[in-house]
């Protein structure tokens, strides 16, 4: 069914599976953060649930459970990128390009008022790509150092003790970096951005509005319009026939 009123159109952003991926990631990230910093700052207020006698083992257990979810999710995500059509299309969109750096430059110049034309973005903006690759970087670091510390009896047999000490330091500082990046970068673009505030709901609804698409993915919108014309099937309701349009929405 075609929707003629453009302002009412919704554009597929995330499939249900991708949204589940995101929320598993978000929850396990949050639990990892709380239970991790509770270890580093045992006297702090957010560590109080784990100060109750005997509950410190619970802290470690929760951290490892969340880590298990996180690692499983990362592996699933890797398989998703390799083995599904939608995943492969996402991968193509996510690959870093020189264009992203130029976009960053243009956006900053535009924001400073030194460039008249607002840059147009495809399916993923440079800040979303930065977010994604920062997450990938952080995940690799955290999983490697985390596993070395989790299975300390195995790593102690392989490495000298200082390697574990270094792993501990890296795990801690990477955690600060990752948490700060989420707070400063991710939360700005999905919450505190004045044009987005109070929340970009696409991770709940799975779709973006015409207005949102024009603001952040103008180039993708233009390509979608071109495709629409070519196929002359009228406007596409991307959510209606998800499977077919998933590819279109992403890989154009």
């Amino acid at each position, binding site marked *: 069914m075609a929707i003629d009123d453009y302002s009412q159109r919704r554009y597929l952003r995330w499939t249900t599976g991708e949204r589940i991926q995101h929320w598993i990631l978000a929850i396990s990230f949050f639990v990892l953060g709380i239970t991790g910093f*509770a*270890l*580093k700052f*045992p*006297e702090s207020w957010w*560590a109080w649930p*784990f*100060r109750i*006698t*005997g509950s*410190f*083992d619970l*802290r*470690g257990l929760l951290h490892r459970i969340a880590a298990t979810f996180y690692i499983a999710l990362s592996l699933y995500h890797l398989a998703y990128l390799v083995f599904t059509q939608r995943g492969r299309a996402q991968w193509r969109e996510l690959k870093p390009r020189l264009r992203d750096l130029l976009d960053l430059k243009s*956006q*900053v110049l*535009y*924001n*400073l*008022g030194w460039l008249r034309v607002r840059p147009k973005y495809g399916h993923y903006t440079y800040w979303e790509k930065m977010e994604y690759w*920062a997450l990938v970087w952080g995940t690799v670091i955290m999983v490697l150092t985390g596993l070395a*510390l989790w299975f*300390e*009896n195995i790593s*102690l*047999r*392989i*490495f*000298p*003790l*200082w390697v574990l*000490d*270094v792993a*501990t*330091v*890296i795990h801690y*500082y*990477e955690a*600060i*970096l990752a948490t*700060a*990046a989420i707070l*400063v*970068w991710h939360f*700005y673009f999905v919450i*505190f*951005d*004045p*044009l987005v505030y109070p929340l970009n709901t696409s991770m709940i609804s799975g779709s973006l509005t015409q207005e949102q698409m024009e603001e952040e993915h103008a180039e993708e919108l233009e390509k979608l319009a071109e495709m629409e014309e070519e196929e002359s099937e009228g406007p596409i309701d991307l959510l209606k026939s998800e499977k077919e349009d998933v590819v279109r929405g992403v890989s154009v």
Partner: protein
Amino acid sequence: MRRCVLMFMILMWMIGSARLLQAQTRDECQECHSDPELTTGTESGEEISLYVADSLFDASVHADLECIDCHADVTELPHDERLKKVDCGSCHEDAAEAVAQSVHGIELQVRSPDSPTCADCHGTHDILSVTDPLSRVSKANQPKTCGRCHSDPDIIARNKIPMVAPVAIYRGSIHGQLTQEREDAATCSDCHRGHLILTPLNPKSSIFKLAIPKTCGRCHESIYEEYEISVHAEALRRGARDAPVCTDCHGEHDILRPENPAAPTSGFRVPIEVCSPCHASERLARKYGLTPARVKTYKDSYHGLALRAGKATVANCGSCHGVHGILPSSDPRSPIHPDNLMETCGKCHPNPTANFARGRVHMVGEDTEARIIRIVRKVYIVLIITVIGFMVTHNVIDFVAKAKRIRLAKYGN
């Protein structure tokens, strides 16, 4: 001539004895003193009983003595209204001499009206053998007897006794609790001695710092032997007065079992309450060349962090260094000697390998491991400042620009 003198002396003795024998046997004394109503007034106007219960005296250690053996100034009947204080020292010379030198005697140079006499601790006509559980000075009763003064806030204040509530604290200790159950639990006199009680600053005292290990070792023999070879005992012998003896770690009157979570020697209190006060002290570090930063490396390690959060199963100082017989890592007997590390770490970490011995711990300052960690930390701090700094700058610019756009769209200016 000499014979004459001897004869005279024998004669005098016979006259004397005869006078005494004629004077008083116990039965004669009891003619009056078996009356429970018999009293006299003291100089302060107080009325005191002069009744001596036969049953109590017969049960006492002095049952075979005559009254006049102690009340030697009774030479005829009726005797003087006011008799002298009994001089126990006429028989118990050693005890009297010891008390005279003790804190209760002359040691503090201030004889107080509160200073105890023999009778204050031992009683009078009813003195029982110290081994009799009912004795005032039996092991179980000593806290109560000593506490008559040492738990009295007025006496403690009046005599400026530094220890304000030793008995109450002792009763809560493991020794105090055990006196109720077993006869060999340490009571007041086991540490302080009975008569020759001296201040801890007197080198002859049983609680003088250097004498403490021996005093405790009277019961805790094997621990004493272990302690004597330790780096602490060695340092003390060589004049390091700050080196700890038993009481520095365990406390004094308040000693608790290490299994008791309230004890400073309990697993998760040891690093903070027992070892840190010296090993993290800048003053002692300067004096003895210790490295206080090593304590911090423990506190920031997984062991230290989990312990601070109250997890008692992680390693504390004693888990690796030992407890009473702490020795430097260079000593082959030390659990942290490289040859023993495998076994020491293996107590908690199963299936240890020789690799464990490669692990150097508590690295600080110019130690290679500490330098590597410092470099990694610096790299990360620079990375965090750069990345987060970039993000903040970018977003502030973005925020201002978008806010302007919104205002422009709303008000058109």
